[in-house]
């Protein structure tokens, strides 16, 4: 088991955003987390990556407890993440966006007097190539098309060599065509690098297409956990979530 949470609970005032969540994720698993808006998916991610501290419960990664560690330390241990909103550095070029992450991965970020320009070029370009952005390396991140920005954010997340990748709505706002392309890309990268993936997604074709397992979150609770076929067949899930989507 690569990743585990035990009885995670987080309250915002009177609202229980995460309620007694216990997850167990195996190495190499592709897990999706689904649930209606406000179900607590992003909050769960924030608890896993140290951005907010749980009121109760524990988080383990590769057998070590990581509850309460700061985000940069959790990231350093090998967890990569993309956020639901802005994930890139808009005024830096595409090349620089990835380069700055490569600096961190190689422990070079603190170098004060060396010239950054030509450093780690090969590594950076390899990553840009793997996400299909090498041709746009001199464009400012903020000027890329939405789909390209989403790919860039994958590139940044991969630069720090994570073994577990958390993606919060990676295809949000994409056209159906871009969604398919991105899904294929994610699947390819995860396979190539032997990653474990946990992702939040609303597009059911993506969810059913690539997940090994699905967790359904509702009002902060995991109400169902199983394989895609099982989720499809389950009536409560149908009623709470899938039914709602079809309205």
């Amino acid at each position, binding site marked *: 088991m690569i990743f585990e949470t035990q009885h995670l609970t987080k309250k915002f005032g009177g609202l229980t955003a995460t309620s007694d969540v216990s997850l167990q994720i195996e190495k190499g698993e592709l897990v999706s987390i689904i649930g209606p808006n406000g179900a607590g998916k992003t909050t769960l991610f924030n608890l896993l990556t140290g951005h907010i501290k749980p009121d109760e419960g524990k988080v383990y990664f590769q057998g070590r407890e990581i509850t309460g560690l700061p985000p940069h330390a959790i990231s350093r241990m090998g967890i990569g*993440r993309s956020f639901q909103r802005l994930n890139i*550095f808009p005024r830096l070029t595409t090349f620089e966006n990835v380069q*700055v992450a490569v600096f961190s991965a190689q422990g070079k*970020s*603190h170098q*004060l007097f060396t*010239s*950054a320009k030509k*450093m780690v070029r090969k590594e950076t370009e390899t990553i840009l190539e793997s996400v299909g952005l090498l041709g746009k390396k001199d464009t400012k991140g903020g000027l890329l098309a939405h789909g390209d920005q989403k790919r860039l954010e994958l590139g940044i997340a991969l630069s720090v060599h994570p073994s577990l990748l958390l993606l919060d709505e990676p295809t949000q706002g994409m056209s159906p065509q871009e969604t398919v392309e991105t899904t294929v890309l994610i699947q390819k990268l995860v396979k190539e690098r032997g990653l474990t993936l946990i992702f939040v997604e609303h597009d059911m074709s993506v969810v059913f297409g690539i997940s090994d397992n699905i967790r359904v979150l509702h009002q902060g609770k995991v109400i169902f956990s199983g394989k895609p076929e099982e989720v499809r067949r389950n009536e409560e899930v149908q009623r709470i979530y899938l039914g709602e989507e079809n309205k």
Partner: protein
Amino acid sequence: MILVSLVLLIVPFVFSRSMVSLINEMLIMALAGCALNLMLGYGGMVSFGPAGLYAVGAYATAILLTRYGAPFIVAVLAAPVVAAIVGAIVGWFCVRRSAVYFALLTLAFAQIIWTIIFEWYDFTNGDNGIVSIPIPEVLYVGSNIYYFSLAIVAVCIFVLWRIVNSPFGATLQAIRENPMRTEFIAVPVRRYQLAAFVISSFFLGIAGSLFCVFAGSVFPDYAHWVKSTDMLVVCLLGGIYNFAGPIVGSGVYILISKVISKNTTYWMFFLGIIIVFLVLYMRNGMVGFAAEKIFRFRNKLGAGNGEGKS
């Protein structure tokens, strides 16, 4: 670049003494502006208190020379060290908050420094300032003081330029763009912000010390928030997203403030209007504005290669 250095080298031969003094002031302000801009433009940390650290540098040199009779070199070299230490303490608190609260904290600390200087008569001579500081005679021979400033400012600005183009500088810009994202590429963001604060303080301390040597006296005004806004305006005027921004901003700001204040007592009024104009019509400062125009022009000629060079 080479042209600029040549012009600066021959300045004392072509201009009057008062003009040389004015350029000397510009040089020191350019260094202060570049030091502040490491935080402001590169780190996205809006500090309202650079003058506090600048004054620490100026007073460190002044007090070491007058009170302890320290050798001149020691008094000058100590200034950035003392400013960096004070900067580390102040910065440690400030980086705990972001955006407007960070700005407010820097302002508060600068005011604390100002009050200490203003009230601690036994040590700082309070509002009388410290005058007739024993600066080595040799600096007053010919234009030596100008060359002294020029040499130190040139070296410091070169070092700052190296820093902003280093991996550290790149990481600092990433923090400016998106601190949350940067934290999750395993960068301890606060520690980097603190480092930027300390480096900035170090160079502000040098600028303060240079001004002490240049003027031969120091006053609590150096720490006043008005001085901080001078530095901020210098950066904004020139443009915070260009390394040369504060250098150009310093020249223009000091020139117009002197020219206007010579001819009218309402110079703050005119300065205000100029700032409003610049902010509304040249949003990236003068250097940013010029760079954009040149870029457009080159594109029009078809010579531009269409890629946004920064």
